[in-house]
């Protein structure tokens, strides 16, 4: 097996195009364990971390660009990024240990195509766009369209995810991500829930995005939960309706991490709680009393 460390996207794509058994990697935190397990057995591993554009994070105008190979610890340590996307930052900070977060990337988390990938629901609720380099140049697709099933993506063999583009959140908008695991660290999501909401001046929800992980073959966007939240003041009835819609949207499996019924119920609970956290973040930022403070 060969190791290659190209410094340009064109060079990386040429290596891929010339060898049907070559694979690309960033942190290799999923690829190496999979190789140790016998699949895949690549003829070449192409390291993407020497390509500047895949390792850059920056704000241009009102659009964030996050390189696909940037270690997630760089994102969680970036105060400006975390202020704009606290939910995505907390999702990135839940992936494995410090050792893993110093290598693992959003591009790898997406392209590994695990239904339980923590960062993907958080990317989806922020309408993140994947910039993909391929034969005809670059194309931009919604992150939700990249993964087609467990371990499966819509990428052609010689295509590479270069970066993610996300518009800065509108005023009075914030996100949150919650995941349930049976312990506090170092586990894979039983259920993950990402929520982004926008509140208008009187506290009414004017926009909402809800996406769930680990409850279906791919991350699930839940328009019915979004519709239940929009127009409400996040009152109990609206939150209960959103939770019920999230539970209904699940198509989970029974496995050692949780049963179908358990996952359905938890998806509703996490959706409700994440909506509350996102709203509290908006109110806190705008100097208003949060729900937590009101309760105390």
């Amino acid at each position, binding site marked *: *097996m*060969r*190791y290659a*460390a190209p410094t340009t996207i064109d060079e990386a794509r040429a290596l891929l195009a010339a060898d049907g058994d070559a694979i690309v990697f960033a*942190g*290799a*935190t999923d690829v*190496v*364990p999979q190789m*140790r397990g016998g699949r895949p057995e690549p003829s070449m*591993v192409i*390291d993407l*971390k020497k390509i500047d554009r895949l390792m850059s994070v920056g704000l241009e105008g009102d659009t964030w660009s996050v390189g696909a190979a940037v*270690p997630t*610890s760089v994102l969680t340590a970036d105060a400006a990024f975390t202020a704009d996307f606290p939910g995505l930052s907390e999702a990135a900070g839940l992936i*494995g*240990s*410090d*050792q*893993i977060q*110093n*290598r693992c990337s959003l591009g790898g988390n997406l392209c590994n195509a695990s239904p339980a990938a923590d960062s993907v629901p958080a990317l989806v609720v922020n309408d993140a766009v994947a910039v993909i380099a391929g034969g005809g140049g670059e194309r931009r697709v919604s992150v939700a369209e990249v993964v087609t099933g467990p371990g499966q993506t819509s990428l052609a063999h010689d295509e590479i995810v270069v970066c993610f583009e996300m518009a800065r959140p509108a005023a009075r908008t914030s996100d949150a991500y919650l995941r349930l695991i049976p312990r*506090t*660290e*170092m586990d894979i999501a039983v259920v993950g829930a990402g929520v982004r909401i926008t509140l208008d001046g009187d506290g009414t929800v004017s926009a909402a995005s809800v996406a769930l992980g680990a409850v279906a073959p791919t991350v699930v966007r839940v328009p019915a939960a979004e519709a239940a939240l929009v127009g409400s003041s996040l009152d109990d009835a609206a939150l209960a309706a959103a939770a019920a819609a999230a539970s209904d949207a699940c198509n989970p499996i029974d496995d050692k991490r949780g049963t179908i019924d358990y996952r359905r119920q938890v998806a509703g609970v996490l959706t409700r709680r994440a909506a509350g956290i996102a709203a509290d973040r908006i109110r806190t930022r705008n100097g208003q009393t949060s729900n937590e403070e009101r309760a105390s």
Partner: protein
Amino acid sequence: MSRTHVNCEVNGDAVDFLTEDGESLLNALRDELGLIGAKEGCGTGDCGACSIIMNGRLQCSCLIFAPEADGAAITTCEGLASADELHPLQQCFLEGAALQCGICTPGFLVAAKALLDENPDPTETEVRYALAGNLCRCTGYDKIVRSVLEAAVQIRTPA
């Protein structure tokens, strides 16, 4: 299998070695450079026994392809002590009985060093989260956590 010539800095010394491309940095450190502190526990990035600091970041050397180390600066547990004195973390682990079988210890020492380099005054909770990527089947962790907190005190207030 292709072979690559790797030049890097390990514990302050310029070194070079020849490695098969698919080899892990962990095996290269152990087999080519004779640095057998880092251990293979799981080989999949879960246990932290192979922890090293590469280019300032704590990482599992079992997940790194050896050729990735070309041009890198690496610290292993062998780099903690000076010529005639143990690192405060090592001394505190000894005095605090923070090890039994010792397999996980080099990884814990390196992970704890990475923590204290960044946060010289961690809380117990911060220590426990920072060491969540290191598994120990002997100690129950309590003596490890206490020893790291004691070492932090000693490093902040040298005798």
